[in-house]
Protein backbone atom coordinates (compact mmCIF):
# COMPACT_ATOMS: atom_id res chain seq x y z
CA UNK A 1 0.00 0.00 0.00
CA UNK A 2 2.90 2.27 0.74
CA UNK A 3 3.90 1.89 -2.88
CA UNK A 4 0.50 2.94 -4.18
CA UNK A 5 0.50 5.89 -1.79
CA UNK A 6 3.92 7.15 -2.77
CA UNK A 7 3.14 6.93 -6.48
CA UNK A 8 -0.18 8.67 -5.87
CA UNK A 9 1.68 11.33 -3.92
CA UNK A 10 4.13 11.79 -6.76
CA UNK A 11 1.31 12.57 -9.19
CA UNK A 12 -0.27 15.00 -6.74
CA UNK A 13 3.02 16.84 -6.23
CA UNK A 14 3.60 17.09 -9.96
CA UNK A 15 0.14 18.54 -10.43
CA UNK A 16 0.36 21.05 -7.64
CA UNK A 17 3.82 22.20 -8.64
CA UNK A 18 2.84 23.02 -12.19
CA UNK A 19 0.66 26.07 -12.18
CA UNK A 20 0.29 26.27 -15.96
CA UNK A 21 -1.06 22.75 -16.11
CA UNK A 22 -3.63 23.53 -13.46
CA UNK A 23 -4.92 26.61 -15.23
CA UNK A 24 -4.73 25.15 -18.70
CA UNK A 25 -6.82 22.15 -17.81
CA UNK A 26 -9.65 24.13 -16.31
CA UNK A 27 -9.57 26.77 -19.02
CA UNK A 28 -11.31 24.79 -21.72
CA UNK A 29 -14.35 23.64 -19.72
CA UNK A 30 -14.89 27.09 -18.26
CA UNK A 31 -14.68 28.56 -21.73
CA UNK A 32 -17.35 26.14 -22.89
CA UNK A 33 -19.50 27.02 -19.91
CA UNK A 34 -19.32 30.70 -20.55
CA UNK A 35 -19.56 30.62 -24.32
CA UNK A 36 -22.23 28.00 -24.58
CA UNK A 37 -24.04 28.57 -21.32
CA UNK A 38 -24.55 32.24 -21.90
CA UNK A 39 -24.23 32.25 -25.65
CA UNK A 40 -26.66 29.48 -26.47
CA UNK A 41 -28.68 29.91 -23.28
CA UNK A 42 -31.25 32.33 -24.60
CA UNK A 43 -31.80 30.36 -27.81
CA UNK A 44 -32.33 27.20 -25.79
CA UNK A 45 -34.86 28.92 -23.57
CA UNK A 46 -36.68 30.27 -26.60
CA UNK A 47 -36.88 26.73 -27.98
CA UNK A 48 -38.84 25.84 -24.89
CA UNK A 49 -36.21 23.64 -23.28
CA UNK A 50 -35.61 25.69 -20.18
CA UNK A 51 -32.39 26.73 -18.59
CA UNK A 52 -29.42 25.71 -20.70
CA UNK A 53 -26.87 26.35 -18.00
CA UNK A 54 -28.58 23.82 -15.77
CA UNK A 55 -28.57 21.30 -18.59
CA UNK A 56 -25.02 22.03 -19.64
CA UNK A 57 -23.12 21.87 -16.37
CA UNK A 58 -23.14 18.09 -15.87
CA UNK A 59 -21.91 17.72 -19.45
CA UNK A 60 -19.08 20.16 -18.88
CA UNK A 61 -18.07 18.39 -15.70
CA UNK A 62 -17.89 15.16 -17.65
CA UNK A 63 -15.85 16.96 -20.29
CA UNK A 64 -13.39 18.09 -17.64
CA UNK A 65 -13.00 14.62 -16.24
CA UNK A 66 -12.75 13.08 -19.70
CA UNK A 67 -9.89 15.21 -20.93
CA UNK A 68 -8.16 15.37 -17.60
CA UNK A 69 -8.42 11.64 -16.97
CA UNK A 70 -7.04 10.65 -20.35
CA UNK A 71 -4.29 13.25 -20.07
CA UNK A 72 -3.15 12.06 -16.68
CA UNK A 73 -3.46 8.44 -17.68
CA UNK A 74 -1.19 9.18 -20.58
CA UNK A 75 1.39 10.62 -18.22
CA UNK A 76 2.87 7.15 -18.30
CA UNK A 77 3.86 8.02 -21.84
CA UNK A 78 5.88 10.91 -20.51
CA UNK A 79 7.44 8.58 -18.00
CA UNK A 80 8.40 6.26 -20.81
CA UNK A 81 9.91 9.09 -22.76
CA UNK A 82 11.66 10.75 -19.89
CA UNK A 83 12.80 7.64 -18.14
CA UNK A 84 11.08 7.45 -14.79
CA UNK A 85 9.09 4.43 -15.97
CA UNK A 86 12.25 2.33 -15.99
CA UNK A 87 12.89 3.09 -12.36
CA UNK A 88 9.43 1.78 -11.55
CA UNK A 89 9.64 -1.31 -13.79
CA UNK A 90 12.96 -2.41 -12.38
CA UNK A 91 11.80 -2.22 -8.76
CA UNK A 92 10.62 -5.32 -6.88
CA UNK A 93 7.02 -4.18 -7.13
CA UNK A 94 4.21 -5.70 -9.15
CA UNK A 95 3.13 -3.88 -12.30
CA UNK A 96 -0.39 -3.81 -10.94
CA UNK A 97 0.62 -1.72 -7.96
CA UNK A 98 2.57 0.68 -10.14
CA UNK A 99 -0.46 1.09 -12.36
CA UNK A 100 -2.84 1.55 -9.42
CA UNK A 101 -0.64 4.17 -7.80
CA UNK A 102 -0.34 6.18 -10.99
CA UNK A 103 -4.01 5.76 -11.88
CA UNK A 104 -5.16 6.75 -8.39
CA UNK A 105 -3.13 9.93 -8.65
CA UNK A 106 -4.53 10.78 -12.06
CA UNK A 107 -8.06 9.98 -10.97
CA UNK A 108 -7.77 12.19 -7.91
CA UNK A 109 -6.59 15.06 -10.04
CA UNK A 110 -9.41 14.62 -12.58
CA UNK A 111 -11.97 14.44 -9.81
CA UNK A 112 -10.54 17.54 -8.23
CA UNK A 113 -10.75 19.41 -11.51
CA UNK A 114 -14.32 18.25 -11.99
CA UNK A 115 -15.21 19.57 -8.54
CA UNK A 116 -13.51 22.83 -9.29
CA UNK A 117 -15.58 23.28 -12.44
CA UNK A 118 -18.70 22.48 -10.40
CA UNK A 119 -17.80 25.24 -7.97
CA UNK A 120 -17.28 27.67 -10.82
CA UNK A 121 -20.66 26.64 -12.26
CA UNK A 122 -22.35 27.38 -8.98
CA UNK A 123 -20.69 30.77 -8.99
CA UNK A 124 -22.11 31.30 -12.47
CA UNK A 125 -25.61 30.49 -11.33
CA UNK A 126 -25.96 26.72 -11.52
CA UNK A 127 -28.05 25.13 -8.77
CA UNK A 128 -28.40 21.37 -8.27
CA UNK A 129 -31.97 20.36 -7.55
CA UNK A 130 -31.07 18.57 -4.38
CA UNK A 131 -27.85 19.27 -2.53
CA UNK A 132 -28.30 16.08 -0.57
CA UNK A 133 -27.62 14.11 -3.74
CA UNK A 134 -24.20 15.69 -4.13
CA UNK A 135 -22.38 12.63 -2.71
CA UNK A 136 -23.99 10.55 -5.46
CA UNK A 137 -22.71 13.02 -8.05
CA UNK A 138 -19.27 12.75 -6.53
CA UNK A 139 -19.34 8.97 -6.69
CA UNK A 140 -20.26 9.09 -10.36
CA UNK A 141 -17.47 11.57 -10.99
CA UNK A 142 -14.97 9.44 -9.08
CA UNK A 143 -15.92 6.28 -10.96
CA UNK A 144 -15.55 8.05 -14.26
CA UNK A 145 -12.20 9.54 -13.19
CA UNK A 146 -10.85 6.10 -12.38
CA UNK A 147 -12.16 4.62 -15.60
CA UNK A 148 -10.77 7.35 -17.81
CA UNK A 149 -7.39 7.51 -16.15
CA UNK A 150 -7.07 3.77 -16.63
CA UNK A 151 -8.16 4.16 -20.21
CA UNK A 152 -5.49 6.81 -20.69
CA UNK A 153 -2.88 4.56 -19.13
CA UNK A 154 -3.86 1.78 -21.50
CA UNK A 155 -3.66 4.13 -24.45
CA UNK A 156 -0.22 5.28 -23.36
CA UNK A 157 1.19 1.83 -23.95
CA UNK A 158 -0.20 1.85 -27.48
CA UNK A 159 0.72 5.35 -28.47
CA UNK A 160 4.41 5.83 -29.18
CA UNK A 161 4.77 9.57 -28.96
CA UNK A 162 3.04 12.86 -28.44
CA UNK A 163 1.86 13.14 -32.04
CA UNK A 164 -0.02 9.92 -31.51
CA UNK A 165 -1.54 11.41 -28.40
CA UNK A 166 -2.82 14.39 -30.38
CA UNK A 167 -4.34 11.98 -32.88
CA UNK A 168 -6.09 10.06 -30.14
CA UNK A 169 -7.42 13.27 -28.69
CA UNK A 170 -8.81 14.48 -31.98
CA UNK A 171 -10.20 11.25 -33.34
CA UNK A 172 -11.33 9.48 -30.24
CA UNK A 173 -11.72 11.75 -27.25
CA UNK A 174 -13.37 14.71 -28.91
CA UNK A 175 -15.93 12.57 -30.76
CA UNK A 176 -16.69 10.69 -27.55
CA UNK A 177 -17.41 14.01 -25.92
CA UNK A 178 -19.50 15.50 -28.67
CA UNK A 179 -21.58 12.36 -29.05
CA UNK A 180 -22.44 11.94 -25.39
CA UNK A 181 -25.38 14.21 -24.93
CA UNK A 182 -23.17 16.57 -22.94
CA UNK A 183 -24.05 19.58 -25.01
CA UNK A 184 -27.56 18.80 -26.27
CA UNK A 185 -30.45 16.60 -25.25
CA UNK A 186 -30.74 13.29 -27.05
CA UNK A 187 -34.50 13.35 -27.24
CA UNK A 188 -35.03 14.75 -30.70
CA UNK A 189 -31.80 14.16 -32.56
CA UNK A 190 -31.69 12.42 -35.94
CA UNK A 191 -31.41 8.64 -35.80
CA UNK A 192 -27.75 8.30 -36.79
CA UNK A 193 -26.72 10.68 -34.03
CA UNK A 194 -28.93 8.92 -31.54
CA UNK A 195 -27.50 5.52 -32.41
CA UNK A 196 -23.93 6.74 -32.10
CA UNK A 197 -24.69 8.33 -28.77
CA UNK A 198 -26.31 5.17 -27.53
CA UNK A 199 -23.17 3.22 -28.36
CA UNK A 200 -21.06 5.68 -26.41
CA UNK A 201 -20.52 4.70 -22.75
CA UNK A 202 -19.94 8.30 -21.90
CA UNK A 203 -23.57 9.16 -22.73
CA UNK A 204 -24.70 7.02 -19.82
CA UNK A 205 -22.26 8.70 -17.47
CA UNK A 206 -23.50 12.13 -18.49
CA UNK A 207 -27.07 10.93 -18.08
CA UNK A 208 -26.43 9.60 -14.58
CA UNK A 209 -24.68 12.76 -13.49
CA UNK A 210 -27.40 14.91 -14.95
CA UNK A 211 -29.98 12.90 -13.10
CA UNK A 212 -28.16 13.31 -9.79
CA UNK A 213 -27.96 17.04 -10.34
CA UNK A 214 -31.08 18.23 -12.12
CA UNK A 215 -33.33 15.18 -12.15
CA UNK A 216 -33.74 14.78 -15.85
CA UNK A 217 -32.67 11.66 -17.60
CA UNK A 218 -32.81 10.15 -21.02
CA UNK A 219 -31.93 6.53 -20.30
CA UNK A 220 -33.06 4.46 -17.37
CA UNK A 221 -31.00 4.72 -14.22
CA UNK A 222 -30.47 0.99 -14.10
CA UNK A 223 -28.94 1.05 -17.56
CA UNK A 224 -26.75 4.00 -16.65
CA UNK A 225 -25.38 2.23 -13.58
CA UNK A 226 -24.75 -0.96 -15.48
CA UNK A 227 -22.86 0.81 -18.24
CA UNK A 228 -20.80 2.85 -15.80
CA UNK A 229 -19.80 -0.22 -13.85
CA UNK A 230 -18.98 -2.14 -17.02
CA UNK A 231 -16.94 0.79 -18.35
CA UNK A 232 -14.89 0.89 -15.19
CA UNK A 233 -14.15 -2.82 -15.32
CA UNK A 234 -13.26 -2.77 -19.02
CA UNK A 235 -11.01 0.28 -18.71
CA UNK A 236 -9.12 -1.04 -15.73
CA UNK A 237 -8.79 -4.44 -17.40
CA UNK A 238 -7.52 -2.76 -20.55
CA UNK A 239 -4.95 -0.78 -18.59
CA UNK A 240 -3.69 -3.78 -16.63
CA UNK A 241 -3.43 -5.87 -19.75
CA UNK A 242 -1.51 -3.26 -21.73
CA UNK A 243 0.67 -2.26 -18.84
CA UNK A 244 1.77 -5.82 -18.20
CA UNK A 245 2.96 -6.01 -21.77
CA UNK A 246 5.31 -3.08 -21.54
CA UNK A 247 8.86 -4.18 -22.03
CA UNK A 248 11.09 -1.21 -21.65
Amino acid at each position, binding site marked *: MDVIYILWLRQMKRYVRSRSRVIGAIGQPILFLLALGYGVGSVYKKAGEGNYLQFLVPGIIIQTILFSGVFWGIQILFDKRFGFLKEMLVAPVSRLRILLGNAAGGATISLFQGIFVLIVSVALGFRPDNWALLPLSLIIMLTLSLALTSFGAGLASIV*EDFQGFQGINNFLIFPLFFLSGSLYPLTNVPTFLRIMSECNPLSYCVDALRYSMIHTHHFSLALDSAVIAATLVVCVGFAVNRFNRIQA
Partner: protein
Amino acid sequence: MANSIIKATSVVKSFGDVHAVRGISFDVQAGEIFAFLGPNGAGKSTTISMLTTMLRPTSGELFLNGHNVASEQDAARKSFGIVFQDPALEEELTAYENMQIHGVLYGISRSEQKSRIEDLLKLVDLWERKDSYVKTFSGGMRRRLEIARGLLHHPKILFLDEPTLGLDTQTRNLLWEYVQKLRDTEGMTIFFTTHYLDEAEEVADRIAIIDHGKIIATGTTPQLTKQTDTKTLEAAYLKLTGKTVRDETSLSNNGLNVRTARRNQRLR
Protein backbone atom coordinates in the same frame (compact mmCIF):
# COMPACT_ATOMS: atom_id res chain seq x y z
CA MET B 1 32.10 -21.47 -10.39
CA ALA B 2 31.84 -20.95 -6.68
CA ASN B 3 31.38 -17.24 -6.31
CA SER B 4 29.49 -16.23 -9.44
CA ILE B 5 27.23 -13.40 -8.50
CA ILE B 6 26.06 -12.86 -12.07
CA LYS B 7 25.70 -15.87 -14.29
CA ALA B 8 24.43 -16.19 -17.85
CA THR B 9 23.94 -19.59 -19.45
CA SER B 10 23.26 -19.82 -23.18
CA VAL B 11 21.05 -16.78 -23.18
CA VAL B 12 19.18 -16.10 -26.38
CA LYS B 13 16.93 -13.17 -27.19
CA SER B 14 15.07 -12.88 -30.44
CA PHE B 15 12.50 -10.36 -31.55
CA GLY B 16 10.68 -12.24 -34.24
CA ASP B 17 13.33 -12.67 -36.94
CA VAL B 18 15.85 -10.42 -35.31
CA HIS B 19 18.29 -12.36 -33.17
CA ALA B 20 19.76 -9.76 -30.87
CA VAL B 21 21.51 -12.18 -28.53
CA ARG B 22 22.45 -15.59 -29.82
CA GLY B 23 23.46 -17.76 -26.95
CA ILE B 24 25.84 -16.03 -24.60
CA SER B 25 27.34 -17.37 -21.41
CA PHE B 26 29.49 -15.58 -18.92
CA ASP B 27 29.88 -15.18 -15.23
CA VAL B 28 31.00 -12.41 -12.94
CA GLN B 29 32.61 -13.03 -9.57
CA ALA B 30 31.46 -11.25 -6.44
CA GLY B 31 33.48 -8.12 -5.86
CA GLU B 32 34.62 -7.84 -9.46
CA ILE B 33 34.51 -4.72 -11.57
CA PHE B 34 33.33 -6.17 -14.86
CA ALA B 35 33.23 -4.31 -18.16
CA PHE B 36 30.78 -5.39 -20.87
CA LEU B 37 31.90 -3.97 -24.17
CA GLY B 38 30.67 -4.13 -27.72
CA PRO B 39 29.83 -2.03 -30.76
CA ASN B 40 26.41 -0.51 -31.39
CA GLY B 41 23.82 -3.13 -32.23
CA ALA B 42 25.96 -5.91 -30.73
CA GLY B 43 23.40 -6.94 -28.14
CA LYS B 44 24.78 -5.03 -25.14
CA SER B 45 21.64 -3.10 -24.21
CA THR B 46 19.49 -6.14 -24.83
CA THR B 47 21.65 -8.18 -22.46
CA ILE B 48 21.52 -5.51 -19.79
CA SER B 49 17.75 -5.24 -20.17
CA MET B 50 17.50 -8.98 -19.59
CA LEU B 51 19.82 -8.88 -16.61
CA THR B 52 17.77 -6.08 -15.09
CA THR B 53 14.45 -7.90 -15.62
CA MET B 54 13.10 -5.48 -18.18
CA LEU B 55 13.13 -8.07 -20.96
CA ARG B 56 12.58 -11.78 -20.75
CA PRO B 57 15.13 -14.07 -22.44
CA THR B 58 13.83 -16.18 -25.29
CA SER B 59 15.82 -19.06 -23.84
CA GLY B 60 18.70 -19.64 -21.47
CA GLU B 61 19.07 -18.59 -17.87
CA LEU B 62 20.28 -15.58 -15.99
CA PHE B 63 21.11 -15.56 -12.32
CA LEU B 64 21.70 -12.59 -10.07
CA ASN B 65 23.04 -13.38 -6.63
CA GLY B 66 21.76 -16.91 -7.04
CA HIS B 67 18.25 -15.85 -8.06
CA ASN B 68 16.83 -16.79 -11.44
CA VAL B 69 15.87 -13.57 -13.15
CA ALA B 70 12.78 -15.06 -14.76
CA SER B 71 11.34 -17.12 -11.91
CA GLU B 72 12.50 -15.14 -8.87
CA GLN B 73 12.06 -11.69 -10.29
CA ASP B 74 11.61 -9.67 -7.13
CA ALA B 75 14.47 -11.34 -5.28
CA ALA B 76 16.69 -10.71 -8.31
CA ARG B 77 15.57 -7.08 -8.41
CA LYS B 78 16.51 -6.49 -4.83
CA SER B 79 20.02 -7.71 -5.59
CA PHE B 80 20.92 -4.91 -7.91
CA GLY B 81 20.84 -1.17 -8.33
CA ILE B 82 21.13 0.43 -11.73
CA VAL B 83 22.14 3.75 -13.18
CA PHE B 84 20.62 3.91 -16.64
CA GLN B 85 22.18 5.52 -19.63
CA ASP B 86 19.28 7.95 -19.93
CA PRO B 87 18.29 9.55 -16.65
CA ALA B 88 15.35 7.94 -14.89
CA LEU B 89 14.63 10.64 -12.36
CA GLU B 90 11.43 12.49 -11.58
CA GLU B 91 12.36 16.04 -12.49
CA GLU B 92 9.51 17.77 -10.75
CA LEU B 93 10.37 16.29 -7.39
CA THR B 94 13.29 17.12 -5.15
CA ALA B 95 16.40 15.00 -4.79
CA TYR B 96 15.21 13.89 -1.37
CA GLU B 97 11.77 12.93 -2.70
CA ASN B 98 13.29 10.90 -5.51
CA MET B 99 15.29 8.98 -2.94
CA GLN B 100 12.16 8.45 -0.85
CA ILE B 101 10.23 6.93 -3.72
CA HIS B 102 13.04 4.51 -4.32
CA GLY B 103 13.05 3.65 -0.63
CA VAL B 104 9.37 2.81 -0.69
CA LEU B 105 9.61 0.84 -3.94
CA TYR B 106 12.34 -1.32 -2.41
CA GLY B 107 10.58 -1.82 0.90
CA ILE B 108 13.00 0.04 3.14
CA SER B 109 11.51 1.06 6.49
CA ARG B 110 10.87 4.76 7.15
CA SER B 111 13.52 5.09 9.81
CA GLU B 112 16.11 3.26 7.75
CA GLN B 113 15.23 5.46 4.79
CA LYS B 114 15.98 8.62 6.69
CA SER B 115 19.46 7.66 7.75
CA ARG B 116 20.45 6.00 4.50
CA ILE B 117 19.21 8.86 2.33
CA GLU B 118 21.23 11.28 4.39
CA ASP B 119 24.38 9.15 4.25
CA LEU B 120 24.15 8.60 0.51
CA LEU B 121 23.33 12.17 -0.43
CA LYS B 122 26.27 13.30 1.64
CA LEU B 123 28.44 10.70 -0.04
CA VAL B 124 27.69 12.10 -3.49
CA ASP B 125 27.86 15.67 -2.27
CA LEU B 126 24.20 16.47 -2.85
CA TRP B 127 22.97 16.87 0.72
CA GLU B 128 23.02 20.66 0.43
CA ARG B 129 20.68 20.37 -2.57
CA LYS B 130 18.35 17.75 -1.16
CA ASP B 131 15.32 19.99 -1.41
CA SER B 132 16.01 21.32 -4.88
CA TYR B 133 14.00 20.10 -7.82
CA VAL B 134 15.91 17.67 -9.98
CA LYS B 135 15.09 19.70 -13.06
CA THR B 136 17.54 22.30 -11.75
CA PHE B 137 20.39 19.77 -11.63
CA SER B 138 23.22 19.53 -14.12
CA GLY B 139 23.97 16.26 -15.92
CA GLY B 140 26.73 15.42 -13.48
CA MET B 141 24.54 16.08 -10.47
CA ARG B 142 21.78 13.92 -11.88
CA ARG B 143 24.19 11.07 -12.45
CA ARG B 144 25.45 11.40 -8.89
CA LEU B 145 21.89 11.39 -7.59
CA GLU B 146 21.12 8.28 -9.59
CA ILE B 147 24.13 6.55 -8.11
CA ALA B 148 23.04 7.51 -4.61
CA ARG B 149 19.56 6.26 -5.41
CA GLY B 150 20.77 3.01 -6.93
CA LEU B 151 22.66 2.23 -3.73
CA LEU B 152 19.85 3.04 -1.34
CA HIS B 153 18.73 -0.54 -0.89
CA HIS B 154 22.32 -1.74 -0.39
CA PRO B 155 22.40 -3.97 -3.44
CA LYS B 156 25.16 -6.51 -4.01
CA ILE B 157 25.47 -5.55 -7.66
CA LEU B 158 25.54 -2.16 -9.31
CA PHE B 159 24.80 -1.91 -13.04
CA LEU B 160 26.15 1.15 -14.78
CA ASP B 161 25.11 1.73 -18.39
CA GLU B 162 27.56 4.18 -19.98
CA PRO B 163 28.00 5.97 -16.67
CA THR B 164 30.39 8.67 -17.76
CA LEU B 165 28.73 9.61 -21.02
CA GLY B 166 28.55 13.37 -21.30
CA LEU B 167 30.24 14.07 -17.98
CA ASP B 168 33.08 16.49 -17.33
CA THR B 169 36.46 15.10 -16.37
CA GLN B 170 36.22 15.91 -12.66
CA THR B 171 32.88 14.18 -12.30
CA ARG B 172 34.12 11.16 -14.24
CA ASN B 173 37.07 10.87 -11.97
CA LEU B 174 34.87 11.21 -8.90
CA LEU B 175 32.50 8.60 -10.21
CA TRP B 176 35.16 5.93 -10.72
CA GLU B 177 36.64 6.77 -7.35
CA TYR B 178 33.28 6.11 -5.64
CA VAL B 179 32.82 2.95 -7.61
CA GLN B 180 36.20 1.56 -6.67
CA LYS B 181 35.66 2.55 -3.06
CA LEU B 182 32.33 0.70 -3.08
CA ARG B 183 34.03 -2.39 -4.30
CA ASP B 184 36.91 -2.10 -1.85
CA THR B 185 34.86 -1.36 1.26
CA GLU B 186 31.57 -3.15 0.57
CA GLY B 187 32.62 -5.91 -1.77
CA MET B 188 30.10 -4.65 -4.30
CA THR B 189 30.15 -6.13 -7.77
CA ILE B 190 30.12 -3.58 -10.56
CA PHE B 191 28.90 -4.42 -14.07
CA PHE B 192 29.25 -1.62 -16.52
CA THR B 193 29.21 -0.80 -20.20
CA THR B 194 31.10 1.99 -21.82
CA HIS B 195 32.51 3.21 -25.08
CA TYR B 196 35.44 4.77 -23.27
CA LEU B 197 37.90 1.93 -23.37
CA ASP B 198 40.65 3.85 -21.63
CA GLU B 199 38.38 4.02 -18.57
CA ALA B 200 37.55 0.36 -18.89
CA GLU B 201 41.22 -0.51 -19.07
CA GLU B 202 41.85 1.59 -15.98
CA VAL B 203 39.18 0.18 -13.67
CA ALA B 204 37.94 -3.16 -14.95
CA ASP B 205 39.13 -6.42 -13.42
CA ARG B 206 37.72 -8.46 -16.27
CA ILE B 207 36.13 -7.67 -19.59
CA ALA B 208 33.73 -9.38 -21.97
CA ILE B 209 33.30 -8.24 -25.54
CA ILE B 210 30.05 -8.94 -27.35
CA ASP B 211 29.53 -8.62 -31.08
CA HIS B 212 26.74 -9.76 -33.37
CA GLY B 213 24.95 -11.23 -30.38
CA LYS B 214 27.81 -13.47 -29.28
CA ILE B 215 30.61 -13.07 -26.76
CA ILE B 216 33.80 -13.00 -28.78
CA ALA B 217 36.31 -12.59 -25.97
CA THR B 218 36.56 -12.52 -22.19
CA GLY B 219 39.46 -11.97 -19.86
CA THR B 220 41.62 -9.40 -18.17
CA THR B 221 43.20 -6.60 -20.15
CA PRO B 222 46.62 -8.35 -20.20
CA GLN B 223 44.95 -11.53 -21.43
CA LEU B 224 43.12 -9.71 -24.21
CA THR B 225 46.14 -7.76 -25.36
CA LYS B 226 48.22 -10.92 -25.39
CA GLN B 227 45.52 -12.77 -27.30
CA THR B 228 45.38 -10.09 -29.99
CA ASP B 229 49.04 -9.12 -29.90
CA THR B 230 48.25 -5.48 -29.15
CA LYS B 231 49.29 -2.99 -26.52
CA THR B 232 46.08 -1.46 -25.18
CA LEU B 233 42.54 -2.62 -24.55
CA GLU B 234 41.33 -0.25 -27.22
CA ALA B 235 43.66 -1.76 -29.80
CA ALA B 236 42.64 -5.27 -28.78
CA TYR B 237 38.99 -4.32 -29.02
CA LEU B 238 39.37 -2.81 -32.47
CA LYS B 239 41.23 -5.86 -33.66
CA LEU B 240 38.48 -8.13 -32.39
CA THR B 241 35.53 -6.12 -33.60
CA GLY B 242 36.91 -4.53 -36.73
CA LYS B 243 37.11 -0.91 -37.75
CA THR B 244 33.78 -0.58 -39.61
CA VAL B 245 31.49 1.93 -37.99
CA ARG B 246 28.25 0.43 -36.75
CA ASP B 247 24.99 2.25 -36.52
CA GLU B 248 22.66 0.48 -34.12
CA THR B 249 22.11 -2.00 -36.97
CA SER B 250 23.20 -5.51 -36.55
CA LEU B 251 24.95 -6.23 -39.83
CA SER B 252 24.51 -9.94 -39.48
CA ASN B 253 20.77 -9.56 -39.55
CA ASN B 254 20.45 -8.12 -43.01
CA GLY B 255 20.41 -4.67 -41.55
CA LEU B 256 17.35 -5.25 -39.41
CA ASN B 257 17.36 -2.70 -36.69
CA VAL B 258 17.27 -4.14 -33.21
CA ARG B 259 15.77 -1.03 -31.71
CA THR B 260 12.86 -1.06 -34.17
CA ALA B 261 12.32 -4.74 -33.56
CA ARG B 262 12.13 -4.09 -29.85
CA ARG B 263 9.70 -1.26 -30.33
CA ASN B 264 7.50 -3.43 -32.52
CA GLN B 265 7.55 -6.12 -29.96
CA ARG B 266 6.37 -3.69 -27.30
CA LEU B 267 3.15 -3.21 -29.21
CA ARG B 268 2.24 -6.85 -29.17
